[in-house]
């Protein structure tokens, strides 16, 4: 614990060249767009120019990523980078799950969709025991009651709730 390397995090090597390369390309692209995407206001001081801070930040990004790439030990992608990239693809499936959930809530409703989402995703993750599925459903109900019921977060009622009889409809729209 005595040398300085103790507080030095190490960047994973696999995949780094691809990420840094892509970030560098994005920075360069954004910098080339500065003339179109920002204006130079006549009569304003340099610091008040709308172009000033985007320009400064993009220049630092370009320099930072560029110098990092230049200092990297290995700048040519290889098998390890490709394997790491395959790991980056994995969460895309859960991104789709998330987006389906987002688009379904205004139609199906927060409570039913949360229960369905929690149980289905738990099943997909390989927890097939009844206890885990029940736990997932209980968690979903608890989240809805806590956040929408008690804390009153703004999540609108669903289109499906409109089909309910008048009594439960207003309750469902407000609390579930």
């Amino acid at each position, binding site marked *: *614990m*005595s*040398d*300085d*390397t*103790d*507080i*030095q*995090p*190490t*960047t*994973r090597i696999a*995949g780094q060249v691809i990420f*840094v390369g892509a*970030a560098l390309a994005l920075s360069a692209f*954004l910098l080339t767009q500065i003339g179109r*995407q*920002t*204006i130079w*206001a006549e009569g*304003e001081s*340099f*610091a*008040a120019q*709308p172009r000033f*801070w*985007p320009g*400064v*930040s993009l*220049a*630092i*990004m370009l320099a*930072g*990523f560029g110098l*990092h790439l230049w*200092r990297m*030990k290995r700048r040519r992608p290889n098998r390890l980078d490709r394997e*790491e990239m395959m790991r980056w693809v994995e*969460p895309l499936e*859960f*991104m789709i799950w*998330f*987006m389906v*959930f*987002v688009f379904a*809530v205004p139609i199906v409703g927060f409570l039913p969709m949360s229960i369905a*989402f*929690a149980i289905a995703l*738990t099943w997909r*993750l*390989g*927890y097939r025991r009844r206890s885990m599925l029940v736990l997932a459903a209980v*968690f*979903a109900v608890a*989240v809805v009651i806590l*956040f929408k019921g008690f804390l*009153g*977060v*703004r*999540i609108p009622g669903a289109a499906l709730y409109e089909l309910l009889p008048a009594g439960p409809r207003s309750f469902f729209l407000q609390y579930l």
Partner: protein
Amino acid sequence: MDILFQAVDVLARWDVLLALLVGSIGGVAIGAIPGVGPAVAIAILLPATFSMDPIVGLTVLLGIYGSSMYGGAIPAILINTPGTAVNALTTYDGFPMTLRGEGRRALSLAYSASFFGGVFSVICLIALSPLLAKVAPMFGSREIFLAALLGILLVVVAHRGQMLVAGALAAFGIFLSTVGLEPVKYTRRYTFEQTWLASGFDLIVVVLGLFAISQAFLLLTMDDEKVRIAKSRGSLFQGFRELFRHPRVVTVSASFGVIMGMIPGVGEFTAQFMSYTSARKLSKTPDAFGHGSSEGLIASETANNAVPGAAMIPLLALGIPGEALTAMMLSVFYVHNVVPGPGLFAFQMDFVVALYLALLILNVLVVVFLLISTGWLVYLTKIPNRFLGMCILLLSFVGVYSIRNSAVDCTVAAAFGFLGYILKRLNMPIVPIVLGMVLGGIMEVKLRAAMTRVNTPWDFIDRPIAFILFAIILIILISTAWRVRREWRAVDRRTPAKKASARFSRRLAGRYGRHFDDRLKIQRRKRRYDHMGS
């Protein structure tokens, strides 16, 4: 004294007391679950706190912030997995103690050290208040600009070994803060004719993506770990007695925590590493460090718990957050039109003192709760990773969707979640993006305001505080450049096979006979942290 009574009056409400209880218990539970952490919890809860009174909302968030590190010590000590990223050092001495059957003693020491650190930082905060109230009004636009610049600079410099990437990511954060309508001519910047970009990137959406959704993705794609909890003996109270046998370690570590917490951009990591190193230097048994030393455990736990109180100093006095969690809290202030900074000390001192008192009560509540509940909190560590990922993903939806009921926000958050996932996989820092985003906005506004009163460059630093801040920035820049130059080495791009061959030929030649021994020693000494739990 009047202010104290007014502050008690602010706190003496059932909703504030409930918030204190929920924040402290919730924070401990969140800290005890490896893979969640306070950043995820605060990001999820932020939108829910917008509908509460500022004091209630901030008390919940402060509760989670202050108490999660207490809870994080439980898995760090019992199963060698830090509950929050800043409990990493606790594993070095806590887990060996558990292996010796002294788990309860280690937990007790961690709780008492954390309590001391937490209370010490609040006392420092209270003691410094009159000074802060005097100094804070001296901060005009140029001083706040320079302080924000210093914060960015420090967060970059603190990431040793990754400074270039940290700098580039901080700049990315600044860039994100510029997207949308700019405040001078109301022209659009980098919107690419997209209406959804006109209002820019919402800080909460970005934070939720980078911290919560990315963590959910990481957990969902992980394997579950088998957790075995070793049996331990001893009393949970013995640590409180034992703590007083190490007064020097405790006070030095707490002081490191307070000082590092006050400096924007530095935070818990540096505080605990510095206090751990100094405790080892001061110790009569330095060899025991890393093998179950009570002093090592005290040093790391005291330092990291002293930071939250101290981190409130730049936030409350100047409106400048020092790290990601206080950056998130800043948004709660803004939502309620409470502007932290010099004005807060001048006109709402009762509110400031109420926050201090809340922090103080929080530490007592947490320790009482831990003494009662440690037995069952241990079982939280057994929640499977992927199931936890599902829970965080569901909660993240609540966080993002409740801001504006916007599917676009959810898409943006998911995209930032994906970016955060890649950054965490690569072990690159996320905090500079968030700080860049918050401080970038502050810097733009303050620099523009400051330049209207500046005719020559010298005018910018002609006031004492501005000059001191400028001098500190200059010293940091020069010392960093000096260090980089001293440590500069040409990049070795030989293949591992070629390097091994060169080493072997050197070995055969018999000249660097101790080469392998030295190398092993260095490897043993190197201990690193990652950004996975941050």
